[in-house]
């Protein structure tokens, strides 16, 4: 970066604590943006894949075929596909064993799908707590830096007998940079957290609905088989 810039001077001339705070906040901002982008892409992909899978699922295709397609695909199954795979795998295994009756089979299948769903949910929510933490604490961290900087500049003021605004102004200005960075980190984090939390909620609802529908389908299949 350039060297003759006043804001840079401000940052470089700040006291060590303020500099640490600013560095921490900058790091937090960086990481939170990484999370924001990564989550954004992931959630979009999950949503797209879920819609695609639902279309395929309800197209009347043989479930075994769909299962084999997913298993043989090169990419890792995500979202709905995982739930479907877990449920279907459990269902076929139980049916081959023929050890359990229908209700028990459906219980096992439901449990397997619930486990898969919670795993998926967990995967979707990765990083969101971090965004929440950055969003709620980084203003305080910035404020801490500012208070510290102002404290120091007023302490410096005590030793000067010419009490003038220009003595403290640079110190306060550089201290306020910390708050600015804190807000800069916090605002996108909070917005992204709220938005992604809502998106995750939507996806989870979709999974839930699919789980129920799939369970119903399997149950009907068991009865028909009999």
């Amino acid at each position: 970066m350039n060297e003759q810039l006043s804001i840079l001077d401000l940052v470089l001339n700040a006291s060590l604590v303020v500099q640490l705070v600013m560095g921490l906040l900058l790091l937090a901002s960086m990481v939170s943006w990484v999370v924001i982008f990564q989550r954004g892409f992931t959630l979009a992909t999950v949503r797209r894949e879920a819609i695609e899978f639902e279309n395929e699922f309800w197209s009347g295709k043989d479930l075994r075929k769909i299962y084999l397609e997913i298993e043989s695909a090169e990419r890792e199954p995500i979202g709905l596909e995982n739930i479907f795979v877990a449920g279907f795998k459990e269902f076929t295994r139980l049916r081959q064993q023929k050890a359990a009756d229908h209700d028990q089979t459906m219980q096992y299948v439901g449990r397997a799908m619930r486990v898969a769903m919670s795993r998926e949910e967990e995967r979707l929510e990765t990083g969101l707590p971090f965004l929440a933490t950055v969003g709620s604490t980084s203003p305080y961290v910035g404020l801490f830096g500012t208070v510290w900087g102002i404290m120091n500049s007023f302490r410096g003021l005590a030793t000067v007998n010419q009490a003038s605004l220009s003595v403290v102004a640079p110190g306060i200005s550089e201290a306020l940079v910390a708050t600015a960075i804190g807000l800069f980190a916090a605002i996108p984090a909070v917005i992204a957290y709220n938005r992604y939390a809502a998106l995750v909620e939507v996806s989870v609802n979709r999974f839930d609905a699919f789980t129920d529908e799939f369970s119903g389908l399997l149950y009907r299949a068991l009865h028909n088989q009999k």
Partner: protein
Amino acid sequence: MNLTGYSILSVFLAVAIHAVIVGLLLTNWQSEEHFPVTPAEKFYIDASVVKQNPHTVKKENTAKIKRQAQARRQKEKKAAQQRARLAQEALDKQAALDKQKAEEAQRKQAAIEQSRLEQLLEQQRREIAESEQQAADELAEADRARLEQEIALAVIEEQDYRRAVTDDEKAQAYVAQIQREMIQNWSRPPSARNGMQAIVRVRLVPTGEVVSVDVEESSGNDAFDRSVVQAVQKSGRFLVPADSRQFERNFRSFTVLFRPEDLRL
């Protein structure tokens, strides 16, 4: 794997966004060159000591006297020239007249008388010239004497002035010290605005203690006037030159102009 791909892309995008924002901030900041990041030791409060000290008046007087003397000298020089010219003219006229007379006489009288008459005329003319010369000399003498006197006077004045200048320089240091002290003790009321000004007359005793502070010219704002008077009184005692002549000249009584210039309003 999808997620790692997204991670790399995300890291790249995050870094890019930060670079763009920081860059924008820096360039914007830079373009705002007038943004005052003022060095710590610089104050704008102006409390200038406006002295109506006799010294400056005297300086002016000296200058005036000098100027007058010069004018007078010039006038006199001119007058002398005029006189000299007049005398010369008179001389010339006389000479012409004499010559005419002589010629007439020459013409009229016989050649015998001519030489005698001529001698006489010559003598007469010489006499006249001599008297004229004498008068001119006398005049010039008087002129020169006066000139010399004036020069002597001017030299004395010059010396006086020069000594006053060095005194002035010394006084300046004290004035600056007093100014600083007043500024330090001046706490302006919230109602103070840029452009307000109050002039106070301060009287000191030779030890430097403040005897009286009177508002000579009010700012129109009581609080402001009070703050100004307090600024002087709070100082209590100023450092003044030990030299009593200097003290009497500059610090016995002086006026101070208080005018805030660093306020926002």
